[in-house]
């Protein structure tokens, strides 16, 4: 596989001298270019730290993260000072609180902030801003006040701000935690669209298991280590392991699994409500026709 992000013996400690407890310990992983990866783990498991390391907000205590940047035309190292600007251009990040990441008072000015700082010519900025706003469905709102938008809309402005930098990878750090169901839905649709139509690599950190179920791959982080890594179906099948580290499978998966464990003739692992309903109806039908 062609990787965009690769970590080697990655460790990080919030202690200055690096001797204290390691938040992230000796991690090796690769993120495939163009893929959608979800990272899950309990509060304090180290998943946000990993995200911040991947986009150069934090510097590894030891080990290295390599970013294969098409725009820079070479492989970058996050701990290398000369590479850090290119790292941040290649890998963007959307945070949790929509109120903390908007800098301008008008939607389109906010979206233009990053390309302006990157010294993009102004005609080009116009184009980038317009297409980014169209991608998140807020083009009609381009002259609105940012502070009067709903949480979901603010989060979409923040995403547009990242898209305007033409990143190759975007990391979402619990970006749906403060949104209502429709806002969450909108953001998840945009995330899938970014991967499918724009070919952007997406990494989603979330506590919502039904969001993680939409990814190609789930990485489960516990105490700074990756303890499970695979397709959603493979990961959710190991419900005991998830439960041990304070996580749970989606309720749809849980219900069907309980029926399976009690001896029902039913699929073992389902991922969403549709699949669960289908599996249950099939099982009921079998029983009914007997």
């Amino acid at each position, binding site marked *: 596989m062609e990787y965009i992000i690769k970590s080697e013996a990655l460790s990080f400690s919030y202690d200055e001298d690096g001797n204290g407890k390691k938040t992230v310990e000796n991690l090796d992983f690769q993120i495939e270019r163009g893929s959608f990866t979800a990272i899950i783990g309990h*509060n304090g498991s180290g998943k946000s730290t990993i995200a911040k390391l991947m986009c150069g907000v934090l510097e590894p205590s030891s080990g290295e993260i390599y970013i294969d940047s098409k725009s820079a035309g070479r492989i970058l190292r996050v701990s290398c000072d000369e590479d850090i600007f290119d790292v941040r251009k290649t890998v963007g990040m959307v945070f949790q609180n929509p109120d903390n990441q908007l800098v301008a008072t008008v939607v389109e000015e906010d979206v233009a902030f990053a390309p302006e700082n990157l010294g993009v010519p102004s005609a080009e900025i116009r184009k980038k801003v317009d297409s980014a706003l169209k991608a998140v469905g807020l083009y009609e709102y381009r002259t609105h006040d940012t502070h009067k938008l709903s949480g979901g809309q603010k989060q979409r402005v923040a995403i547009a701000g990242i898209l305007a930098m033409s990143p190759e990878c975007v990391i979402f750090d619990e970006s749906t935690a403060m949104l209502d169901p429709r806002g969450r839905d909108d953001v998840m649709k945009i995330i899938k669209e970014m991967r499918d139509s724009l070919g952007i690599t997406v990494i989603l950190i979330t*506590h919502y298991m039904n969001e993680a179920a939409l990814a190609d791959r789930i990485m489960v982080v516990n105490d700074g280590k990756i303890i499970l890594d695979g397709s959603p179906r493979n990961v959710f099948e190991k419900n005991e392991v998830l*439960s041990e580290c304070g996580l749970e499978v989606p309720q*749809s998966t*849980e219900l069907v699994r309980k029926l399976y464990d*009690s001896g029902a003739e039913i699929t073992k692992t389902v991922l969403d409500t549709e699949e669960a309903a289908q599996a*249950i*109806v099939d099982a009921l039908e079998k029983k009914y026709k007997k």
Partner: protein
Amino acid sequence: MIEFSNVSYVYGKHTPFERAAVNNVSFKIEDGLVTGIIGHTGSGKSTVAQLMNALLTPTSGKVLLDGADINASREISYKTRFKVGIVFQYPEYQLFEETVEKDIAYGPTNMGLDETEIKRRVEMAADFVGISKEILKSSPFELSGGQKRRAAIAGVIAMEPKILVLDEPAAGLDPRGRSEILGRLTKYRQGSDKSIVIISHSMEDVAEYSDRILAMNDGGILCSGTPSEVFSHYDELCRSGLALPQITNIMNLVMKKCKERGIPFDNSAASFFTVDDAYKYLAQRLELKSEEGGNTVC
């Protein structure tokens, strides 16, 4: 009991940005119950919360606490804030004292209570949210996210409000943290006439922990009642940007598909909203021998 009687609240009155956040709303929050408030962003939930303890004064209509208007005078409004305690979203951002103990004591101190009573309340509140004695002496800024959240909630509980209003108390917590905090909080009303109001975007949490649900839409009330009553308004909820709890969604789909295929299915099962209820019903229908799997398989 809190009663809203024809309450409206308009932001930016007499400006071009005038907007009614709450529009002629009437409802009651009953003693001894957990009431969940759901609604899309901007539906007026948080405005309702702030109206409950006179942080906002209604543009028209009245808010009554046990029959008395809470906005009758400044003094009454002030006292109301000790009876109706609000825990805002992300309350950990409001921690400010040197130690967790002092932070929790801030509310009771302002109430003018004596030292022994303050101490009793701090210990009670800390114990209630699950904060150990050692943590009480440390700085709130050294705590983990989950501990900070609990410390901040303890600060409101220490005032022993009659009504505890929580805006998204579990947002940003992992699944175990969510169920732990919600489980503890809903115990606050047990064996007393105290009541709890939980504002949340999580339909699963609201369904599981509430006795009553109030669904808001565009500043008005969309529907209210027990969780099964409210979640039987499937189409209205979806149209207003809300959702059904996952289990209700599944059971609804199962019911529709069963009808298509001529398989018998009880309509009442379609409004189940917990894994356990759905499991019990289906296990019985599938004639599963053991219900051993009834232990929560997380």
